[in-house]
């Protein structure tokens, strides 16, 4: 394929790493937005646009708008409303995060080698998408704020999107539209939820969201 697309892949991976070490909440939001935009541009740059006609134009544009403009705006608003501290408050240190991210990339490479895709157009695209998915998980599991969890979800979404591109699976329009709508509504609903959380709890630290539990702590071993 073309080197331009491969360049984008590299950028996506670098963005993963950056996400792993960024401490500022707004920085994270922007990085995710950038990643979404870059990934959205991939099909345009990866060529073959003419073959798909108007559809190939509409979707990337919709995606770029959504991920580059709507989501960051929503999330930044939610962050401002919540009045929380402005950093991500990781549960593990940044070096550990980046090590995990690297590990995820290595594991993804191995998995990619086990799964020979029939028509891979871009090298590294499968590992990159898997690594992005794992980075998303990293954000969800090692950061305390509700917003970072939404960010993690978006990163996972990005990874999946890239993977879908890699396959050029012929998704009918209705299906793609539905998927896009779902993602949009998901983030929207999550945004509303964050708004409620910040109102009820005065902050959006999910450590507070652990009242519902069945752990019989201290009731055993006697």
């Amino acid at each position, binding site marked *: 394929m073309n080197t331009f697309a491969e360049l984008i892949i590299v950028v996506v991976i670098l963005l993963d790493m950056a996400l792993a070490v960024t401490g500022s909440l707004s920085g994270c939001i922007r990085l995710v937005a950038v990643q979404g935009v870059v990934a959205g541009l991939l099909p345009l740059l990866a060529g073959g646009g003419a073959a798909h006609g108007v559809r190939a134009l509409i979707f990337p544009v919709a995606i770029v708008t959504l991920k580059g403009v709507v989501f960051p705006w929503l999330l930044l608003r939610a962050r401002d409303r919540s009045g929380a501290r402005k950093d991500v408050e990781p549960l593990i240190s940044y070096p550990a995060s980046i090590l995990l991210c690297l590990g995820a990339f290595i594991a993804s490479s191995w998995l990619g080698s*086990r*799964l*020979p*895709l*029939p*028509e891979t157009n871009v090298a590294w695209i499968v590992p990159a998408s898997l690594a992005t*998915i794992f980075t998303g*998980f990293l954000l*969800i599991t090692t950061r305390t704020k*509700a917003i970072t*969890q*939404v960010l*993690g*979800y978006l990163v*996972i*979404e990005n990874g*999946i999107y890239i*993977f*879908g591109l890699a*396959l050029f*699976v*012929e*998704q*009918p329009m*209705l*299906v*793609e539209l*539905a*998927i896009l*709508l*779902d993602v949009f*509504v*998901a983030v929207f*609903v*999550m945004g509303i*939820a964050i708004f*409620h*959380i910040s109102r*009820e*709890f005065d902050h959006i630290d*999910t450590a507070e*969201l*652990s*009242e*519902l539990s*069945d752990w*019989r702590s201290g*009731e055993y071993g006697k």
Partner: protein
Amino acid sequence: MIRPLLLLPLAAGFLAFIVRSDRARRLLLVWTARVHFLLTALTVLSYLKGPGGVPFAAWLTPLYPRPSEAVWFSFDALGLFFLGITSLLFLGASHYAAYYLAAEKSDPGEDADGLFVFNNAPEAVFTGCLLLFLAAMTAVTSSRHMGLLWAAVEATTLLSAPLIYFHRHKRSLEATWKYLLICSVGIALALMGNLFLGAAGLKAGGGLDFAAMLAAAPGLDKPLLKAAFLFLFVGYGTKMGLSPFHTWLPDAHSEAPALVSALLSGALLNCAFLGVLRVNAVCVSAGLADFTGGVLVLFGLFSVVTAAMFMLGQRDYKRMLAYSSIEHMGILALGTGLGGTGLFAALLGALSHSLTKAGLFFTSGNVLAAERTKRISEVRGLWRRAPRTAVLWLGGFFLITGLPPSGVFLSKFLILREAVAGGHYWLAAGFLFFLAVLFTGMARVFIAMTFGDRGQKEGEKPYAEPAGMLLPAALFFALVLGLGLYVPAWLDSLLWAAAGR
């Protein structure tokens, strides 16, 4: 066309946001449910009678699409079966809801645990989301395309989140948040699975249309298909509540209003199960039965174990019911994994579980209304305070734990027999042991709550049991009981057709 089934709840849902009068909105809800159920019944009837068997049905539902016609929505036996469950359940839930909403309006209630006065979400949003939720579930059962199925399943998550947050307080918010995030992440993985599925079929063709994939199954790329199955299994398994992805389930079920819990447990989990069944069918056709069977059996059994472990010493009766749902989802996975009669048994189990569990959740709502607490230790002597609720509560316990006559019993017995016949003795032994633990754990709770005599609390009003909140559960229980005594021939053939034989 299938459109009425889909469009009716959709339109009604949007309408519900606009309608101002509570009364009118409740009527809308009930009548939509009734018409939906009628349409479903017609569809089932016309399926059973064959083409042209039922007048006027042809324009309602294209059951037999012409080949090569790109149809997004149509029904096969499996989809129809789950549609039937969903519609029936919604019929019960809507009638329950009419009374429930009226009761909540007049007496918003107070959560005895948190001393937090409910600030219920506006009824309009609730009713609207409820109807849209039905539309999404109808879409799940009727999708022929895996991608569409995915989108519909994700839609059910998003539409049910506001329902869980009906009682606007901290704990229901927490439950909603967990539900939303865990299920979304899970479903995202399922999307990945869909992509793998597409990749597996790139050479063989067929896309993601279910029937086409089934036909092309032997030619699918095996490693990719395996990966697809794993992703889809984890994804839909999360939504279905298999352990260890079940973590959202007890929280959501315990914090949602009773009728929402009933729908979640009885209808929503089935929708996710349908997703698993679809991909499993493709894998089995592709000759991966052992592979998928192993995974399903493993997680099925682990779900039963988890449920059993949490049943011991459970403190909250709605959470207890939620864990029982996890158990049953485990049993369904187990049956599916065993294949053959096991799959038939799993479907029978899905039907019985949905009805029973919905009935139990309805009843739990009455218990909550009567006792104002969800803590098991604070509920005593229901028999005295709310005798009819108590009878339902105890009856539901007998049914759900599989005491015959009950469809649950038949399903468990068939699955056990299938396991033994397949030589999985240790599996059968473990299954039985944990079923015994579950039974004992639940027996303790139900006996403690139902029997005894706690006397009257200070300033407590007697609880008048509204018939509208009892009848749906009674009806469902009667059906499950009847199912244990008599499985009609048409249902039998529908089940076998759905099980792929």
